[in-house]
């Protein structure tokens, strides 16, 4: 029996799908026209499905564990449904973007450079992470970021070609730039600066940056000044002891305190709701994640709660995939905490690989209605307005040093 009626609650369904994946037989895969050459495996490589209430999910369907999922993808009269037992719900499958088929002038497939996740195009120009070379990589990390120190660094031009192609398809509302760990005091922002500048110069798109907390706050000022509209310093684990254990690199070379200080400072520099940190659900007790949620929302930082899906290659042992029962209290708290602290939740939305605070409202006992603002920000005009306001705010707040 489905205790939570997950099929009819998009957030429940999203989490369940993220945890357990979805079955899809070969015939369905063929009829859907999924081209398996474009990486449908890995942490973020599943199938992007648009659930009711505009909720995106990235669900695994090729991995072993997905074969025993209670959900099944079915096609009826050219319409797609997710079926569980006798019930089903209509969904849309997002085909892999057309630009995945293209390559840069230098011959690199754009699908290697940019990955679409809902309304985001995620790009990691340098896929290396030095934690791996020092044996202090995050224990849950499957090395999806890392190429053992030999990864190709994509040039600004290659990244621009990717954003351009995504933009032409109308799929680059937000460009999400990230970087692994390198032993520099700036947390990687100096490396990302030319990319941010170039994207801002050529496209009217918002840019989110995922980096490591820099040693000094002026790098955070510069991150904002150079054009980042949102910043993420992912602490991943809130519990002090588990942070040390699971994220030894982050602990030793950056430190928990610095994560907190940098996020606190960034929340004063960036607009409300645009500074975020990941807290991985399931890698620490729910109470500890809840503590983290309450703490971060208290300093106006948005906690983003991905669920850890076991991946081949990660050396996290004894990991037990949490159940829906385990994670629900956490998401409920997320919604109430963001509301209580008046954090703008329109920014972190439409991401298929994590559960956003906006979606967390489906766990609270509120109606599913979208707010007026939420509706507006989904329109073309809303996207343009968000970009315009963000640009205007930066113009007003940033002053060149020494100006008199």
């Amino acid at each position, binding site marked *: 029996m489905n205790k939570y009626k997950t099929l009819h609650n998009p957030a429940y369904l999203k989490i369940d799908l993220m945890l357990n994946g979805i079955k899809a037989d070969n015939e369905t895969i063929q009829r859907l026209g999924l081209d398996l050459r474009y990486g449908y495996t890995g942490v973020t490589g599943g199938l992007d499905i648009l659930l009711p209430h505009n909720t995106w999910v990235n669900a695994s369907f090729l991995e072993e564990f997905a074969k025993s999922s209670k959900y099944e993808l079915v096609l009826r009269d050219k319409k797609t449904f997710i079926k569980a037992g006798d019930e089903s719900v209509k969904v849309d499958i997002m085909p892999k973007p057309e630009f995945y088929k293209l390559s840069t002038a230098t011959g690199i497939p754009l699908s290697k450079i940019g990955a679409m996740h809902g309304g985001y195009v995620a790009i990691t120009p340098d896929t290396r992470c030095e934690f791996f070379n020092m044996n202090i990589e995050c224990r849950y990390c499957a090395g999806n970021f890392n190429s053992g120190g030999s990864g190709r660094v994509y040039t600004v031009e290659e990244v621009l070609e990717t954003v351009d192609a995504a933009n032409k398809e109308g799929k680059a509302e937000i460009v999400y730039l990230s970087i692994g760990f390198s032993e520099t005091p700036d947390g990687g922002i100096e490396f990302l600066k030319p990319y941010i500048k170039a994207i801002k110069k050529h496209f009217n798109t918002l840019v989110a940056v995922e980096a490591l907390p820099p040693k000094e706050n002026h790098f955070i*000022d*510069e991150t904002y*000044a*150079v054009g980042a509209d949102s910043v993420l310093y992912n602490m991943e684990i809130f519990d002090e002891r588990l942070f040390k254990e699971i994220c030894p690199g982050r602990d030793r070379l950056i430190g928990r305190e610095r994560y907190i200080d940098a996020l606190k400072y960034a929340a*004063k520099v960036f607009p409300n709701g645009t500074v975020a940190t990941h807290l991985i659900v399931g890698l620490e007790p729910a109470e500890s994640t809840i503590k983290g949620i309450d703490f971060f929302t208290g300093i106006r930082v948005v906690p983003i709660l991905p669920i850890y899906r076991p991946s081949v290659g990660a050396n996290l042992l004894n990991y037990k995939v949490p159940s829906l029962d385990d994670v629900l209290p956490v998401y409920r708290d997320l919604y109430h905490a963001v509301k209580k602290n008046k954090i703008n939740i329109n920014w972190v939305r439409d991401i298929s690989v994590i559960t956003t605070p906006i979606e967390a409202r489906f766990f609270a006992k509120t109606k599913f209605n979208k707010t007026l603002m939420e509706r507006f920000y989904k329109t073309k005009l809303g996207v343009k307005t968000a970009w315009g306001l963000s640009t205007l705010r930066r113009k*007003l707040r*940033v*002053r060149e*040093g020494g100006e008199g």
Partner: protein
Amino acid sequence: MNVVIDKRPIWVILLSRSLRPLFFVVVAIIFWYLVSIPTPDGLGLEGQRTIALFVVCLILWVSGVLPLAITSLLAIVMVPLLGVLDKKAAYALFGNEAVFFILGAFILSGAVMHSGLAGRTAVVIMSRFGETPKRLIASIFFLAAVLSFFMSEHAVAAMFFPIVLEIAKGLNLKPGKSVYAKSLFLALAWGCIIGGVATFLGGARVPLAVGMLKEATGINIGFFEYTAAAFPTVLIMLLIGYFMLTKFLPSDVEDIHKIKAVFERKIKELGKIGYAEYAVGVLMAVTIFLWLFLGRTIGIANIAIASVVVLFVFKLVRWKDIEEYVNWGIILMYGGAITLGAAMEKSGAAAWIANTVISEWARSPLIIIAILSLLTILLTEGMSNAAVIAILLPVGIGIAGKFNLDPRIITYTIAIPAGLAFCFPMSTPANAIAVSSGYVTARDMAKAGVLMMISAWVLFNITVFIYWPLIGIKI
């Protein structure tokens, strides 16, 4: 990338941004009002317009809304537009000797810095004499002062800053807490400030004052003459400063042998003294000799520019190396200030202000000197010391005319105190540099600075009263 994020609420930022255009509208209205009211008795139309322009420049210089140089350029443009001087005459004033002296001084000072001579002198002397906490303070303080006799005090402060910072770090002094660190950085700032008023070379403001005097009255002040008038104030202020640094800020450090290594490393880094250092040293010595003894006959600007030419003939520096030391903003500012000063004088505006506004409180020459020097010393704490001169000197020269005072006295009365800004980081770059270290707070600086400011004013007036008559300056 050097950015500052304004974290005030957006509405406050928007309001403050909209204040700027509003400010200019208000300034324009003030200008329009001053030129359109009936011309007061004793003042011609040109004088009235010049006063209106002067008020506008005063507001802009004091508020700092426009860079000082741009306000000066505005003055140059407006003087002919208002019909006070013709175009040719207004722009010709920009070719004033003082402007070229300042240019030459910037280049020479840049050569001394670039050759490494200044840095070497500082490190060698500090390592030789700075063996105890007090002696180290004394070496920084007196050395910064003496170097500021010969080159821009701002350049001296900038040169000393990394060395003093390394000393503070080498001694593990706590920023904002250590009393010794405070005295180290205050010694640096005060040394530069006090030393900077000793000669024409410490800051460009003295040549500006002298240039303005010459344009307005045709009277010249020589290098030696100025130094003779300023020197007792400098000397006694140095003693007072040293007393304050060691008595009011007693050292909380006993042993400073650790920094010996810092000096040794620095000396090693400098290597042996090179040809350029020798040559620049000799050229500087000859230049100063000529300024002192032949300045009146040859002209100090001629000497400065000739020395600059020699620098390049012997390839002691390249233009590229020197460019960063030449503050073009200050040069433009001075050109404009001199033009405006001359317009004030020639249109009769300065004399009119002196007659009507100032004659109320000006009962005797000594009171005039006391009040003008007080006004100067207070204004210079809050604004650029060159701007203080640009504002006060034209009026001061008018006052001199009314009371039959030697205008040179008024020039000294404004030029010397204009350099003595001790209280705030914005008063002068040397203070800003000290506070930027993080070891001295703006509060520490203000507390100690107020005492220095009062001492400077009292001392200056005593010097005027007792010493000036002895060297033939009759009041």
